[in-house]
């Protein structure tokens, strides 16, 4: 298949792996930010093609995983209301809250629906004026434009029965939080190609300069990822700290202007709590004042209940790149995709799910 096969080509992959081996002279630790990249790395066992001195650690770039328990509890509480239809992406339904997940809320009689686009939720609201439709909006900058478009369209349609429970988060503040955390071992970043498709990569330039780390905009196929790693280790070996674009078939420096304008129109930057990372200042997107009528948190004020994570779950350490999923004592035994303790075992972008799906082959040998 054109535009896919050439990026999964065995010969091209081998050539890049050799080039990486020839380049490195010292140990380097590189973090791929995006969960989609984590999955590709684990699925294709790309880390096994790398020289042993290059260590890949998995970043927090799974939006489902970093959504705090409190917000899931809020979504569950909304789904329990008889007049509310709660919509979200499929992965969110199985993420455990304090008491239960959205699937359990659905089984108990709540109207919970899986949608493929926030615009489907707007259509649902337009077609069902007697119901209040809440879209539980989860995602990084990649999906923020479509969420924004949903609010924009709902306002234009004059809908009064549609709102958003926004859990949108931003990548650059998370990179900053990881780099400024004590004990950080990440020396270079593969930035998330699809986030940069929307946002461009200008905002990474000050980060690279401040923390003295190379940041390479990277795609999601095996060849893309190895190209990103090669560019990153070249910079590290040369002592350069630059922002480089190795995903130029999708990303330009200024990103997608109309999409960014739509985000600016509907959202404002807010402090946001991340599961596993704590509250990061100015790291989330909440609804701007002009769209307050579409803010589910303002429409349905709910007492914030403090939520406890399962004590055994090391999701926070995994999301910061401090631990690998298989280093968790519950991995694959008390925590599986069917009975997850934490979100990274649920989501299609979660690191624990990737290890469980592709890598039970050799738990001891996993790097």
């Amino acid at each position, binding site marked *: *298949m054109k535009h*896919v*096969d050439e990026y*999964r*080509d*065995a010969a091209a*992959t*081998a050539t890049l792996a050799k080039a990486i081996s020839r380049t490195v002279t010292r140990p380097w630790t590189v973090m791929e930010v995006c969960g989609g990249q984590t999955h590709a790395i*684990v*699925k*294709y*066992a*790309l880390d*096994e*093609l790398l020289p042993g001195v290059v260590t890949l650690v998995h970043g927090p770039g799974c939006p489902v995983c970093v959504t705090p328990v409190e917000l899931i509890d809020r979504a569950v509480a909304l789904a329990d209301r008889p007049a509310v239809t709660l919509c979200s992406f499929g992965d969110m339904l*199985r993420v455990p809250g304090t008491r239960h997940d959205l699937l359990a809320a659905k089984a108990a009689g709540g109207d919970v629906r899986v949608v*493929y686009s926030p615009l489907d939720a707007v259509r649902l609201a337009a077609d069902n004026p007697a119901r209040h439709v809440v879209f539980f909006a989860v995602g990084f900058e990649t999906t923020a434009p479509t969420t924004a478009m949903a609010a924009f369209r709902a306002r234009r349609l004059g809908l009064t029965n549609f709102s958003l429970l926004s859990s949108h988060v931003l990548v650059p503040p998370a990179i900053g939080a990881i780099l400024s955390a004590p004990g950080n071992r990440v020396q270079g970043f593969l930035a998330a190609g699809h986030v940069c498709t929307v946002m461009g990569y200008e905002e990474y330039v000050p980060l690279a300069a401040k923390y003295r780390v190379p940041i390479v905009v990277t795609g999601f196929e*095996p060849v893309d990822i190895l190209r990103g790693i090669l560019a990153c280790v070249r910079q590290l070996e040369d002592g350069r700290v630059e922002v480089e674009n190795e995903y130029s078939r999708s990303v330009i420096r200024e990103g997608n202007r109309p999409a960014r304008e739509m985000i600016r129109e509907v959202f404002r930057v807010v402090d946001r709590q991340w599961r596993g990372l704590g509250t990061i200042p100015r790291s989330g997107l909440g609804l701007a004042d002009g769209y307050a009528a579409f803010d589910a948190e303002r429409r349905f004020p709910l007492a914030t209940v403090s939520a406890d994570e399962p004590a055994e779950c090391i999701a926070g350490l995994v999301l910061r790149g401090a631990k690998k999923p298989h280093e968790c004592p519950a991995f694959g035994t008390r925590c599986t*995709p*069917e009975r997850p303790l934490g979100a990274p075992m649920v989501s*299609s972008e979660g690191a624990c*799910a990737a290890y*469980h*799906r*592709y*890598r*039970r*082959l050799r738990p001891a040998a996993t790097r």
Partner: protein
Amino acid sequence: VSTVNPPVVCPVPPSDYPHVLLAHGGGGRLTRRLIDEVFRPAFGNPLLDRQHDGAVLPASPHRLAFSADSFVVRPLFFPGGDIGTLAVNGTVNDLAMCGARPLYLSASFVIEEGLPFEKLRRVVASMTRAAAAAGVQVVTGDTKVVDRGKGDGLYLSTAGVGAIEHDLPIGPAAVRPGDAVILSGDVGRHGMAVMAVREGLAFETPIESDCAPLAGPVLALLAAGVEVRCLRDATRGGLAAVLVEIAETAGVRVHVGEAAIPVAGPVRGACEVLGIDPLHVACEGRFVAFVPADQARRAVDVLRAHPVSARACRIGEVEPGPDGLVTMTSSVGTRRVIDLPAGELLPRIC
């Protein structure tokens, strides 16, 4: 009671009503008309025409295979088939996977009040065609009508009996390290065909379901003397689920090559767009056969002579267990584990 076979086509309206009513399931006059005007003309055969409470079957000198399946697909009609073709082929294929020659089916209809007769007739006509293609007779059945809103138009349930005309102990327990794994054709068509209709996805090349009867190629394998160890059709959970089930039950490891597994271009494209692994997508006319390695080539040749398995190929082999894992050499040459899909991938597709 007339014992003369009614005409195969149904020129007479089944009733004066354009839609199925609750009374059509009530056991009275309308039920009788539904049976006489829709079901018997379509399925008519001497066993059914006795109009007894059940079919009385002749004794068989062979071991019998018996299987049952229910069908709740939405939408009822999709490119390449409908709930009727699925219901016949689903049970026919389950019997075929036992190494049996499918002979008799039952067909139970749970109809939602308000279903247009035109749709019911289309489904029944599909079942008639599928049964004829598979060489089976529908010999007994049942009809219930449920209140409007309590069903998705039509649910079907079929059960079937087939004769096992050989002595091979076909099943996971017969699988041995060294066996070859053969796949009967490209994977993922059925699930993506239904998904495309459900989600309103339009592709340049429409994807048609692979729904087809598999008894023909299976019986051909057996007739050719291939010592088939295990057969399984790749329905829900797709090829991945089938391989994992067999590996776990047999206590062996199964290794396949990604490059060897055929996936049609439009199916691959749709899976890429939706983020779905084609190996997890359901088929309704594909199966895997585990055969001794030295008979693999013959088995592939036999299968390729059949239209429904014309693209059969060897995709891998059985390795010593006991871990029950399925592994795959990826397109970049590394090995990974193939897992069962977690949760519902595509709800209500069969």
